[in-house]
């Protein structure tokens, strides 16, 4: 030990200090408080946990796929499992507290993926960002825990303004969910959903008409299928009708309101309408009750189809309901039985002018018709289109038709028929052909043949004998004519001689006239000779000079 250091250890001083609880315990306290507060926050901000069933989990990822409402992330898929039976995928979704109200029982969930449809392209943004689950918040008050995810996005969301209606269609046609609904060719809504009716007899379509167009749907509104191109080749020719190019591809529905609908009442939401096949049918379906008639035609009615028009005086008042073959045992003939539906209300104001009679409608109709039949009302299958051979039924007055009896008590009422105009023409042509057939064409032909042979012989003779002679004669005639022409020529000597002769005759005549003049003046000169006093000297020299001149020139 170093001797410079004291051997005794130093005495420490005692300082009195208050013992305080160690501050170090603040650290875990703070950590715990923070942790707890975060836990509380997480617990408070987490909304309900729901499960959604999907057909496939394509694009879904646990912990990554968000749930979006109006493009705001309101939750996250926390787990994806298979359903117990393995048929579906169950996505467990943790919703945020702010979106806790989205779990209504009628809320709808669907996966937004890129979709290319006829109506357009949607969900392009998810190409890069990945799929997400979209929500359409329901209106119900009750909240649910388990949902069935939609496979396709709903066309109508709960927030949209408007009303939905139910259309009853015979079949779906080319209509699909999202198919547009047109009013005056403006798209005013779309098909929200469809389902087969319970009995399988019809398809119930739910259409949604956006506000403010929904007010145009009234009690007098008619809906019809405007899908695709409506090309109809009927008795009234080729008809092509379409709403828009989009409907050609994707199908669509159109509606219109009847103008003579009387008092129109705005339709309530969910009202049921019939979906007509086309516009014509939609408008015709207001014709009230149809009156069924039976027509029996004795001839074939090729070209008459169900739906062909029934015209009365050129106005369409009904349609053919059935065409079938029948057998009339009495006559041992096959006949065609045609059922037609006539809508009397299509006659419109004419009905009111017709005489009224007592009894029920059917009875009145029968009695009214009996009178009409007596005046010549007949049904006739007429050709509407010669090109296609389509037939239609015409009800017309044919006063010259043979009388027919009309059974007022028969049900259904049977209207008398006559053959169609084309058939009549056919008959006439047939009779003409028959007459033609009776002509002895063969013997006529033989006779004509023999005559032609004789003629041939005659012609040969003509050619061999007559023609050369005729040629010769013609030649002679020509030479004779030439000779004659020589005679008639002004330069011909004959002509000149004649001229001179005539001149001399003229001179002789003049001399005779002078002589006769002198005799008239001096008749006595016949006896006494020429008096001296007379002045024949005036004429005499001229008379004398002339012959001398002639004699000189014409020796």
């Amino acid at each position, binding site marked *: 030990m170093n001797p410079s250091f004291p051997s005794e250890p130093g005495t420490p*001083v005692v300082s009195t200090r208050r013992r305080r609880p160690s501050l170090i315990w603040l650290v875990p306290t703070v950590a715990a408080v923070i942790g707890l507060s975060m836990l509380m926050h997480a617990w408070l901000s987490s909304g309900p946990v729901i499960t959604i069933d999907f057909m496939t989990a394509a694009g879904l990822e646990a912990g990554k796929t968000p749930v979006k409402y109006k493009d705001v992330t309101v939750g996250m898929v926390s787990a994806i499992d298979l359903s117990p039976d393995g048929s579906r995928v169950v996505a467990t979704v943790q919703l945020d507290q702010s979106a806790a109200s989205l779990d209504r029982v009628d809320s709808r969930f669907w996966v937004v993926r890129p979709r290319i449809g006829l109506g357009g392209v949607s969900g392009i943004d998810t190409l890069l960002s990945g799929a997400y689950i979209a929500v359409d918040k329901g209106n119900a008050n009750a909240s649910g825990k388990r949902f069935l995810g939609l496979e396709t996005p709903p066309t109508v969301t709960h927030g949209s303004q408007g009303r939905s209606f139910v259309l009853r269609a015979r079949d779906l046609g080319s209509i699909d969910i999202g198919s547009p609904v047109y009013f005056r060719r403006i798209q005013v809504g779309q098909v929200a959903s469809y389902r087969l009716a319970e009995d399988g007899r019809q398809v119930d379509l739910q259409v949604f008409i956006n506000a403010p167009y929904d007010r145009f749907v009234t009690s007098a509104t008619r809906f019809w299928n405007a899908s695709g191109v409506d090309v109809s080749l009927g008795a009234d020719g080729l008809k092509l009708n379409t709403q828009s190019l989009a409907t050609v591809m994707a199908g669509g529905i159109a509606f219109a309101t009847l103008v003579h609908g009387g008092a129109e009442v705005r339709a309530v939401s969910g009202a049921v309408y019939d979906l007509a096949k086309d516009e014509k049918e939609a408008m015709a379906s207001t014709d009230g009750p149809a009156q069924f008639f039976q027509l029996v035609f004795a001839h074939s009615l090729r070209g008459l189809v169900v739906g062909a028009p029934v015209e009365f005086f050129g106005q369409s008042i009904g349609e053919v309901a059935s065409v079938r073959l029948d057998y009339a045992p009495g006559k041992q003939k096959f006949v065609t039985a045609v059922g037609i539906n006539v809508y009397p209300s299509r006659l419109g104001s004419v009905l009111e002018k017709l005489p009224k009679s007592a009894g029920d409608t059917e009875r009145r109709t029968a009695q009214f018709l009996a009178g009409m039949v007596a005046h010549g009302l007949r049904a006739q299958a007429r050709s509407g289109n010669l090109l296609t051979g389509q037939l239609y039924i015409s009800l017309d007055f044919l006063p010259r038709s043979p009388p027919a009896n009309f059974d007022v008590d028969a049900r259904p009422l049977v209207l008398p028929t006559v053959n169609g105009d084309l058939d009549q023409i056919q008959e006439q042509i047939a009779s003409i052909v028959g007459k033609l057939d009776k002509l002895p064409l063969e013997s006529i032909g033989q006779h004509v043949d023999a005559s032609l042979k004789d003629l041939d012989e005659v012609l040969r003779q003509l050619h061999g004998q007559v023609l050369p002679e005729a040629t010769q004669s013609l030649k002679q005639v020509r030479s004779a004519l030439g000779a004659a022409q020589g005679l008639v020529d002004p330069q011909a000597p004959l002509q000149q001689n004649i001229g001179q002769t005539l001149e001399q005759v003229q001179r002789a005549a003049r001399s005779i006239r002078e002589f006769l003049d002198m005799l008239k003046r001096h008749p006595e000169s016949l006896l006494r000779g020429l008096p001296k006093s007379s002045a024949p000297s005036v004429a005499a020299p001229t008379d004398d000079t002339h012959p001398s001149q002639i004699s000189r020139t014409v020796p």
Partner: protein
Amino acid sequence: MLPPQASHMGLTRCHICGMTCVNDRPGIGDLRCGRCRAPLHGVRADRIGASWALLLAALICYIPANVMPVMYTQLLGNGSESTILQGVAEFWRSGSYGIALVIFIASVVVPCTKFVTLGLLLVSAQRKTPWKRRERAVLYRLVEVVGYWSMLDVLVVAVVAALVKFRALGDVEPRVGILFFGAVVILTMLSAMQFDPRLNWSGEDS
């Protein structure tokens, strides 16, 4: 029989000036060095509480560090948050076993080992048990050495978040979980520092 310790002889060495002071009246108050007036203390048995507190705080922070997302990754509009274990699982699934292992060791194995080791040291120190004193000393040194490496996760997130900034194409942002994880690392280190390894040797020898 080991030679006597300073406390047995009623002596305490001042840590500042090195003077050996008599400390034969324990429990009467704070002793200060007679020369430099620095607080005199022997084995800091009182620090056990602080060590416990920090260890507890670290343990508390470890829960949100694992439950809450540490990183938000957004690639081509597809954003997702991931926790540490999700990241490990993802790396493992994609075949990067090495990276997955490193992250797993740094973020799970090391902190858990530290919790257990520190807890063990603290308990055994409180009990003054002579059980495997040498091994416990080795454990303590191991804890001190390994402590810094636990910051690997924090470092990865910080670097990636700083590097990956491609706006719409891709983006990485840190999330609150990494803060808790950093707190865990710091608190365990502090806890280890508070622990006086001399406590290991107090108590009776067997």
